[in-house]
């Protein structure tokens, strides 16, 4: 029998049911992996050892009684943006250090109801704002990967960098993430794991610390497409507490993995082949096209004419929504409070927010406040909402011709910590291939497709129609099979 942490989630699920392994020993194996690796990688902000072992004990009892649920005994990690009852939930911010919610998010309660065990809360960019996981108050997450030639530590991507790194380094079997403009898919690509952002409305945002509410969407990371499909099925579903949650039945995504895409039409958006595209990214994209063609799909070139405007549109809409959402952090009801001596209430607000928010968060709140302010609202915010309409139309027209789209996930492999940090716009360009999908609310998945010449993972993205995650998973399964990605990071639990 393979070492416990080498089992995939599907294998562990079956081994647990057949009582070849116990949930307790599986959980202990992951806790010891965290003990060993977390001091270097900083993927977890909080480790919930007791809670994990208690859940595992319950799972072992249920398995004996023949009452195993969908994820019985599976140890998972939770992005520290999901509220977890009585467990510190920081959003990677000093503002929420020590905050212990009195309620559980919808997505995490789905996981616990299915029998999963929480190992801990993973690190992230502050309030999920970032593409490198270098804006967390709790320190940078270090990628488990190293470049062949480099001694430098690399970023895991962001904002769900801790979750992606934890899955890649085998510190958990699966992890939750949230994706506003690429925060699941980009770190999945950088860390060589699978990451899925479902359709906007598939997963409830109840209990997720809000960043940009018209874009935020929870999703899952796992080592392969099947494990992602299994966990993604569990966390989806209608929730009356989120008014944008879709009242639709959730299919069993694992059943969508038929391995058959014969006759399917796959679109290649020509505008994604931007001038100056990285040679290796273009090459892996071509490989992906060839794989899907060999599997019997028909490749069709499509046009998404407004692609280049998606990023600037996003950087109006997301900060605008963030500036409103983050107005709640005022030092009164929860979180940090800084009160200058004899200071007024207004001074308390200003000092609290100055001390509690980091630089990137402040930058986005200020931009958001500016574009919503009198005199600029029409020129920026209304304009962006109109361009967003055009972006949605682009995808609608493309999906009249094709069943799914294939694109790169990120414009490069992972970069070193500190790179791209001198210029915010340069950092924002990391999400050039993921943001259009977010703006249109469509499902997207990143699948590891190969390695760069420096030995770092490169991901390809599959995008589907709204609420057609099944096609996305089906194509992803076929591509994963063709890619045969077997590379492993240098720093991981070796079993």
């Amino acid at each position, binding site marked *: 029998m393979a070492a416990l942490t080498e089992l995939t989630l599907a294998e562990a699920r079956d081994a647990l049911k057949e009582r070849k392994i116990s949930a307790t020993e599986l959980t202990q194996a992951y806790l010891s992996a965290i003990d060993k690796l977390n001091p270097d990688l900083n993927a977890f902000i909080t480790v919930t050892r007791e809670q994990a072992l208690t859940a595992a004990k319950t799972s072992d009892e249920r398995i004996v009684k023949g009452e195993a649920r969908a994820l019985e005994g599976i140890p998972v990690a939770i992005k520290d943006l999901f509220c977890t009852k009585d467990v510190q939930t920081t959003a990677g911010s000093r503002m929420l250090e020590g*905050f212990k919610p*009195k*309620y559980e998010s919808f997505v995490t309660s789905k996981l616990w109801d299915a029998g999963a065990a929480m190992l801990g809360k993973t690190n992230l960019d502050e309030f999920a704002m970032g593409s490198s996981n270098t804006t967390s108050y709790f320190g940078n997450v270090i990628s488990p990967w190293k470049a062949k030639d480099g001694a430098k530590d690399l970023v895991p991507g962001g904002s769900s960098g801790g979750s992606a790194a934890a899955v890649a380094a085998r510190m958990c079997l699966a992890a939750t993430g949230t994706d506003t403009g690429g925060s699941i898919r980009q770190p999945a690509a950088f860390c060589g794991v699978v990451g899925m952002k479902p359709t*906007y*409305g598939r997963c409830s945002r109840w209990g997720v610390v809000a960043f940009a509410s*018209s874009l935020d969407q929870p999703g899952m990371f796992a080592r392969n497409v099947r494990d992602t499909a299994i966990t993604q099925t569990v966390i989806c579903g209608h929730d*009356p507490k989120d*008014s*944008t949650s*879709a*009242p639709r039945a959730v299919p069993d995504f694992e059943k969508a993995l038929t391995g058959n895409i014969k006759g399917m039409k796959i679109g290649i958006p020509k505008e994604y082949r931007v001038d100056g595209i990285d040679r290796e990214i273009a090459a892996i994209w071509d490989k992906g096209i060839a794989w899907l063609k060999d599997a019997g799909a028909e490749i069709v070139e499509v046009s998404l004419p407004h692609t*280049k*405007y998606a990023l*600037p*549109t996003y*950087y*109006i809409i997301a900060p605008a929504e963030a500036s409103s959402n983050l*107005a709640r952090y*005022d*030092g*009164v*009801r*929860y*979180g*940090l*409070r800084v009160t200058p001596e004899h*200071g*007024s*209430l*207004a*001074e*308390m*607000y*200003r*000092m609290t*927010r*100055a001390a509690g928010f980091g630089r990137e968060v*402040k*930058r986005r*709140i*200020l*931009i958001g*406040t*500016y574009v919503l*302010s009198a005199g600029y609202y029409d020129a*920026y915010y*209304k*304009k962006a*909402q*109109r*361009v*967003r*309409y*055009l972006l*949605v139309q682009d995808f609608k027209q493309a999906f009249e011709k094709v069943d799914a789209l294939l694109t790169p996930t990120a414009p490069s492999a992972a970069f070193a910590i500190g790179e791209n940090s001198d210029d*915010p*716009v340069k950092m924002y360009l990391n999400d050039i291939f993921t943001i259009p999908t977010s*703006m*249109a609310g469509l499902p997207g998945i990143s699948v590891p497709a190969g390695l760069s010449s420096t030995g770092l993972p490169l991901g390809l993205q599959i995008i589907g129609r*709204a609420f057609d995650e099944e096609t996305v998973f089906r194509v992803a399964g076929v591509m994963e099979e063709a890619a045969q990605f077997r590379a492993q990071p240098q720093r991981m639990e070796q079993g």
Partner: protein
Amino acid sequence: MSIDAATVTKIARLASIDVPEGEKEHFAKELSGILQWIEQLSEVNTDNVPQLSSVSDTTLPQRKDEVTDGHIREDVLANAPMSDYGCFVVPKVIE
């Protein structure tokens, strides 16, 4: 459009964030850079294009206007930096 230190002062006040004098120039430069990059949207013709605020295809659901929870005062106050007599406490706002 470029943002100067005075504009940073104004939006920082609107956003209720204290920005020290020494940081204003730096923010002004960064925010101007972002806004200049955003300016490219002016190339897009949006005459007669509707505004899109949500991609959700469902209309917002309504429910009966009735109390569905409550009696959780302790939970509500559990994370308050300061509370007393079952209330949030803030600096005095009236003389």
